[in-house]
């Protein structure tokens, strides 16, 4: 009896040892962050309280960051993913993009996430003619006005493969795609990231292809379909321009290093339609989408926190001055949509309305 028990015990120990070896090897597996390991913003608090109200997109939903708290707009994703919010001046409404599989539309949303108005209708009902659908992205409102700028894949000749964005403008409450502002370079992807300036011009990223490489230049357009002023060189490969509230500086993202694997965040003085020598604020990063605080106290941008990816919100105080503060990571484990530039309203508090 005793011998039998001993044999059973030894066999159990052997089995346990085998299981232990299996689990020991498994414990050596490097955990790779996935979408599941990302928090929803409302479950977290930013490290600092930023002025005004920021609108940001994560995983198909839009969040508002005000007074140090995130608020979920609880947008329905049944028709697509919400992205690229843009605050409407002097109101508590925003314009945002609803991206479906093969088209995207602009919507006017209330402060609590209700659809006020569908501003465009880019879906084509004929399933076999997908090329009749259209994309609209990057909405931005002119401060103090109901004029809106955005990128639109028109004009498009359905007989060719050329599908390129051009910058368009229109009005909320009027015709949305009223005026074609830029003429894009064909077969490059076109013109994106329009941002209205205080002097009535619009600054944007203009893509081109030369010497076998695709690159973007920062362009200013003063009149519809006029010749743009190119502020940066092809070699600098800069885009995503963000003019400061006083219009004296431009923050931008430029390609950096080998193999298109990193970017750098730069600012440069804008004087008489020319950019001064750029100052690099952050180098060798995956920096994206700079946006100035409405009071000019600093700028936010997206960057990954470490090699595992996930885009977080970062802040540089005093970026307009001669000695900007070091970058400060504001959020952790949120993985914002880096193709959705944040939008920054000067209004600091937004009343929560009943749904």
């Amino acid at each position: 009896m005793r011998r039998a028990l001993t044999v059973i015990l030894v066999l159990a120990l052997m089995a346990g040892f085998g299981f232990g070896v299996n689990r020991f090897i498994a414990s050596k597996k490097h955990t790779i962050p996935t979408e599941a390991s990302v928090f929803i913003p409302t479950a977290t608090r930013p490290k600092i309280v930023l002025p005004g109200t920021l609108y940001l997109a994560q995983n198909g939903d839009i969040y508002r960051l005000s007074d140090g708290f995130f608020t979920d707009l609880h947008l329905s994703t049944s028709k697509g993913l919400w992205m690229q919010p843009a605050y409407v001046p002097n109101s508590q409404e925003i314009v945002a993009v609803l991206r479906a599989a093969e088209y995207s539309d602009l919507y006017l949303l209330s402060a609590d996430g209700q659809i006020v108005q569908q501003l465009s209708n880019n879906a084509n009902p004929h399933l076999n003619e997908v090329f009749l659908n259209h994309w609209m992205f990057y909405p931005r409102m002119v401060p103090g006005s109901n004029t809106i700028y955005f990128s639109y894949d028109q004009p498009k000749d359905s007989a060719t493969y050329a599908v390129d964005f051009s910058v368009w403008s229109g009005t909320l409450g009027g015709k949305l795609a009223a005026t074609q502002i830029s003429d894009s370079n064909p077969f490059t992807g076109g013109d994106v990231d329009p941002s209205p300036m205080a002097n009535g011009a619009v600054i944007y990223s203009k893509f081109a292809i030369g010497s076998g490489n695709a690159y973007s230049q920062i362009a200013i357009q003063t009149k519809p379909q006029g010749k743009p002023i190119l502020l940066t060189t092809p070699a600098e490969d800069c885009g995503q321009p963000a003019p400061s509230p006083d219009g004296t500086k431009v923050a931008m993202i430029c390609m950096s290093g080998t193999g298109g694997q990193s970017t750098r965040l730069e600012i440069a003085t804008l004087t008489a339609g020319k950019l001064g020598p750029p100052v690099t604020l952050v180098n060798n990063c995956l920096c994206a989408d700079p946006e100035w605080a409405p009071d000019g106290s600093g700028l936010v941008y997206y960057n990954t926190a470490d090699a595992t990816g996930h885009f977080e919100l970062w802040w540089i105080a005093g970026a307009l001055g001669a000695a900007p503060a070091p970058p400060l990571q504001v959020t952790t484990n949120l993985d914002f949509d880096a193709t959705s530039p944040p939008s920054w309203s000067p209004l600091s508090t937004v009343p929560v309305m009943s749904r």
Partner: protein
Amino acid sequence: MRRHHVRRTRIVLGFLIAFGFVLSGAIGALAYFMPAIVTAIQDTGHAIDRNLPTATASAIASLGASPSATATAQSVPPAPGAPFTVLLLGSDNDAKFMGGPVLTQSMILARVNPTTKQVVMESIPRDMWVSLSTGGFAKIDAAYEHGGASAAVATVEADFDIHIDHYAWIGLLGLVNLINQVGGIDVVATNPVMDDFYPADLSGKNPYAYERVAVLPGPQHMDGLEALMYVRSRHGDLRSDFGRSQRQQQVLLALRAKAKLLGIANLPDIATAMGNDFSTDMTISEIASLLPIASNIQLQNVKQVILASPYTSTGVLDNEDVLLPNWNLILPETHLYFPAV
């Protein structure tokens, strides 16, 4: 005598118990690595057949192909730590081609020097008109279709006058699943990648249908399907296949960044994810040994080569739009990084 017997019994028993623990531990490890072992048996160690027939010298000379296109190098395994050359192949093995031979949409020659930690990647345009190792002339993407990896390797070896140590082939879903398995990749999209005629073959619809693609520019996190759109689309790019080749190299480098985070214990998950959409002549241990090499290579030590004009020029042959190679330029450029045989 009895004491001796008891002692011997104890020794045997002790040995059996120790052996039992070792066996149990081995079974535990075997169970963990089973997916990788299955993959190793199914997908790795596929030796390159270097005895395929080659095109005749006269036929090659008459069409201006590489002067050494009849030569195929014999396989000599690289010494440990010595530089080696891998031919990376990617195919559209989607629903349109179920069960049949496939073309290679992507061919990248990679030269890895583990000692100096340098890498050179040279993309071979899929439309390049070359002599195939299986005979005749065609676009180089047909080599794999005509004779699998061995024919692709032999064709590139003969036309480029180099020796290839290893190959690795991956299908569409293999790439998608690999990228998803490493948690996606972070890519700086070079420009908006727009395509109204992107194949809808992975969306479960009619494999001959089209869908629209719009990859927005700038830094972003991509899952497998998004990354596939980025590297596969070519209709909206002025550079067509050359633009796509550049993006493919960019995504390979982004995968390299994720490889830094992986260890040998991650291999079973990756092997399971890639399933039947991967094959190579490398053994599983050789693949595992590449992980630390990948993590040690700095971006500034990566050289990228694209064979655009003047290395190639457009032309029409057999009613097909093709790229005509200028071997007088291609071979010297290639041999700067890939030793001539």
